């Protein structure tokens, strides 16, 4: 006899399954504990991270958009922006090459002093930037080790652009290398050996196999390196000499403006740097979202 499907459901005596999360939750803390912990974390982040960033932008636009633009169009501000871009344009490619070379050597070869080299790469992270700057002053300054020779040959390093570039290169050296070493170590040298056994030359193996394998990690490292190169204050402050319009980078320019109580201008330039940080973060997030697997081998900073 044909029967209605709804009848069957009526006589179904099985109980509806319980909500699964009741038994599957990994932690057993009470709800109020969880909420207050999350609340503390969020409040802390708002206070320490978000609030200052928001303040930078509100201060920058406090006196209106006109003042904001005026401060940026200022002769010295433009010079500072140009110098910052120039320094980054020199330091980042240099560290890209150094970083790839160092990571390549450390990850793919065994040699004496490898541990020492690895430690050396981390040195700029552990040394205070001011100290790194001072080292260059001691080395190249007028009273420094190479000072007299440099003066005799009319070469300016300290209190000039070359000094700023050197200090920036030093401080930002680890970013690319540190990003690549764990990645390349995790990948091993099997792919390169395969390429060589197939007849590729060393260069062909590097361009066609190694580089594509590390490209996203490399981009990530370059991004971080660039953000730091543009934002570096301590080391650059020591070697720059604060010659307005000549050797002040953006961070130094901001400090000068701030010390002159020119807050609107200081925050206007600062907002540019903050924008750079935000853009870096966004690109980083996009990279992680798209290529998380390839980046997973690298340590986070």
């Amino acid at each position, binding site marked *: 006899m044909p029967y209605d499907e709804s009848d069957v459901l009526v006589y179904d005596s099985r109980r509806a399954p319980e909500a699964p999360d009741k038994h599957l939750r990994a932690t057993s803390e009470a709800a109020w504990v969880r909420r207050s912990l999350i609340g503390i974390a969020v409040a802390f982040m708002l206070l320490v991270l978000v609030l200052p960033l928001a303040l930078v932008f509100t201060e920058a636009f406090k006196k209106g958009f006109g003042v904001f633009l005026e401060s940026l169009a200022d002769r010295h501000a433009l010079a500072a922006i140009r110098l910052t871009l120039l320094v980054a344009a020199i330091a980042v490619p240099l560290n890209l090459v150094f970083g790839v070379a160092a990571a390549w050597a450390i990850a793919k070869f065994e040699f004496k002093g490898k541990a020492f080299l690895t430690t050396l790469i981390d040195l700029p992270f552990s040394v205070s930037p001011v100290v790194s700057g001072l080292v260059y002053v001691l080395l190249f300054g007028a009273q420094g080790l190479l000072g007299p020779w440099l003066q005799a040959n009319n070469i300016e390093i300290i209190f000039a652009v070359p000094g700023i570039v050197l200090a920036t290169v030093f401080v930002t050296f680890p970013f690319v290398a540190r990003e690549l070493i764990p990645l390349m170590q995790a990948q091993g040298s*099997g792919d390169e*050996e*395969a*390429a060589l*056994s197939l007849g590729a030359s060393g260069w062909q193996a590097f361009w*066609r196999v190694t580089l594509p394998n590390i490209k996203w990690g490399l981009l990530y490292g370059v991004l971080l390196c660039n953000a730091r190169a543009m934002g570096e204050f301590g080391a650059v402050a020591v070697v720059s000499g604060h010659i307005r319009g000549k050797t002040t980078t953006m961070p130094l320019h901001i400090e000068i403006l701030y010390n002159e109580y020119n807050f609107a201008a200081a925050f206007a330039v600062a907002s540019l740097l903050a924008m750079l940080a935000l853009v870096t973060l966004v690109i980083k997030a996009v990279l992680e979202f798209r290529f998380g697997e390839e980046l997973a081998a690298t340590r986070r900073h």
Partner: protein
Amino acid sequence: MEIRVQNVRKEFSRYPALHDVSLGIRSGELIALLGPSGSGKTTLLRLIAGLETPTAGQIFFGDEDASSKSVQERNVGFVFQAYALFRNMTILENISFGLKVRPRATRPPKAEIRRRALELLDLVQLGGLDKRYPQQLSGGQRQRVALARALAIEPGVLLLDEPFGALDAQVRKELRKWLREIHDRTGHTTVFVTHDQEEALELADRLVVMSQGAIEQVGTPDEVYDRPNSPFVFGFIGESSSLPVEIENNEVWSGGRAIGLPASDIAAGPAQLWFRPHDVELVEDGAALAGVVVASRRVGGTRRVELEIGGDRQRVEVDLPFDHPAGEKTRIAFRPRRWRLYPAKG
């Protein structure tokens, strides 16, 4: 191509990985380097490929001394355990890589490269997957692509480093058969490394059994299995049991009694008796080895029992028919049908 390894020695930071190894590989044969981990088999393979350089000794490809040649110049096809496929390239690009990187003078035209790569893809039964990326293939498929890639450069010799080591048992068995077919069809001299004796016995024309950086025995699967020349080979290849015995009056003695095995070409004194658990006969009376069952387990169509023999409780394993009534503490008397005697060490 014929390969000769002559007195090769390899040290890694002064730790020897291979001591004075010599080996002749015949043209067109499929030969297995077999041994436990740390036996130096992979090192030997990498030395042949040119991925490592010997500390001493020479390697000849045909009559040519290849020792000083780079890996690129040796023209070997190398297949890695971890596949080592280029993940940024499609399957087709992977296979054509070796041809594409050739200098212009010897590089075939684009269409020809493509044609050959597609042909190889068919050979490894992966036709139609040319546009996929390695990550989209299963382990077995990846290893087939790796083989096709190695074959694309028309290598003089094909070297495989534990090619099926990362695959599950079922796939491994299929690929084994398939590799044999490819070898028979293409006729490449092929050397492969494995720690899986079953794989080596089934696949290879000859086996090279290695241990602790030296070659223990070279021979056909039958020779190595039936006439192992050292206790190590006997114990490493196939199932085995061993027992300390005495040799006296050209006979084997155990626990002060002769056990009915003649011993002609071995000096009197202590020795080690080796036999296969499945190669024994149960005896009712007469001279034999006797022991008490201490453990038993079902292995395929037979029952394998562990026997405790004599006062010093030496344990050996023998196979009984699965319906044999033996239980715990049952006394069993047996004689190996085939056996080997090796002088006791020291």
